[in-house]
């Protein structure tokens, strides 16, 4: 990456941190507390944008997987893998915020309500995608199997959603928001969407770099993991090709 590109990337992350700070001010200072749930409802301003972005990341993985099978260009597969990884990370946030909210609202950390069940199954589907990818040897084979699984997983998403709706629901059916709440919710989409896009892009660049390397191995392979700082100079015990 050139110096200008590095500066651009650094500026992006600094701007994003400032946007998040501004969003926090909006959530905690500008927006009033919800009447029945109180301040815990403020988690909603993070929960919903992250949930929508999780779905968008899954959609990117699906489209990129179809494009890979169509064109057989490696960068489509790198994009699909990056988007799926970010989908897992975002879905973990959705689950965590949903559980915290559920604990405050209903007194339990977990309930098999349709939306929580849907988030959990979505999380599992894409965790399995990442595990399957790491189990396959050979770049092309890994890309084909990963693409097939990503397509199947995404086709399953509406079916999971519909079947989960058969379960008893204790979520509120519809939420009435005051104008200030609507504004904060809309504003929260900006930093969360930019964060998701930034994470997908960063992971995509990492994947491309790993793919471009000769005899490339997965980014999380022990060969790619540097020594910890306290072993920085200890070349003799660093994991090398021979050690592996």
């Amino acid at each position, binding site marked *: 990456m050139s110096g200008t590109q590095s500066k651009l990337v650094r500026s992006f992350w600094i701007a994003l941190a400032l946007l998040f700070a501004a969003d926090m001010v909006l959530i905690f200072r500008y927006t009033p507390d919800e009447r029945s749930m109180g301040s815990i409802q403020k988690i909603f301003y993070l929960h919903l944008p992250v949930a929508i972005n999780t779905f968008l990341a899954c959609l990117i993985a699906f489209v990129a997987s179809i494009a890979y*099978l169509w064109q057989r260009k490696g960068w489509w597969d790198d994009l699909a893998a990056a988007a799926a990884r970010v989908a897992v990370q975002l879905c973990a946030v959705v689950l965590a915020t949903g559980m915290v909210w559920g604990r405050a609202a209903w007194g339990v950390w977990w309930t098999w309500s349709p939306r929580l*069940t849907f988030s959990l*199954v979505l999380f*599992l*589907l894409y965790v*399995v995608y990442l*595990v*399957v990818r790491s*189990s*396959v*040897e050979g770049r092309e*084979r890994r890309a*084909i*199997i990963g*693409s*097939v*699984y990503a*397509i*199947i*997983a995404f*086709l*399953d998403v509406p*079916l*999971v959603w*519909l*079947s*989960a*709706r*058969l*379960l008893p629901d204790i979520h509120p059916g519809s939420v009435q928001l005051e104008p200030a709440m609507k504004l904060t919710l809309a504003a929260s989409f900006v930093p969360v969407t930019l964060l998701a896009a930034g994470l997908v892009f960063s992971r995509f660049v990492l994947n491309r770099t790993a793919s471009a390397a000769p005899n490339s191995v997965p980014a999380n392979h022990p060969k790619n993991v540097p020594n910890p700082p306290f072993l920085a100079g200890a070349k003799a015990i660093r994991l090398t090709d021979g050690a592996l």
Partner: protein
Amino acid sequence: MPLVAQQFLLLVGKDLKIEARSRQTIGLVIVLGLLIVVVLGLGLGGGAAVGFGATVVLWVAYLFSGVLCFEKTMAVERSESALAALMLTPISRGTLYLAKLTSNLALMAAVALVITPAGVLFFSFDLSAAPFTFAAVMALGIVGFAAIGTLFAAVVSSTRLQGGLLAMMIFPVALPLVIASTQLLIHQFRDGLPVGGMGLGVLIAFDAIFLTASWLMFELVLEP
């Protein structure tokens, strides 16, 4: 008879003949299914899941037995490079998929015919109100399960991590089948509501979507 139908019947006949002669899969899978029903029956103490709770227990037994069944039927093709030889023949990959799916379905039907009465008996599940509804819902579920199971068995047979990977791939994808069929049967047998609506739609849509998608993508994952 069209050539494709002849090829299909030949492949299914080959799989069933191998199974009839060796009896490698069916005995193993039935015993595993029965053990799961017994262990869950003992674990739940007979009180927590009586009646329609049997449907959940049966699904657990179907899922694990099915995974073993799909793995074994694909492993047959791996021995002595049988799959490589099969891929050299002028048979389309789609026909290969449909034949393997049919063999798996035949085995799963045999397994279900033994496990289901055991589950119904152990959990005092009174099927008399709607026995055909029960059979139809379970059959729809098993068809969808076998559709993705056959595809993923071909995927897993070509990876280095075989043990457990197939179950991990199939279970999250098959969850809509489990949720929809158990909810449909609970509504039917507990509340007396007729089977239909969204639950039935999910089962039919699952079967249609994954039969088509798996048939189309089988060619991509098949590797000798």
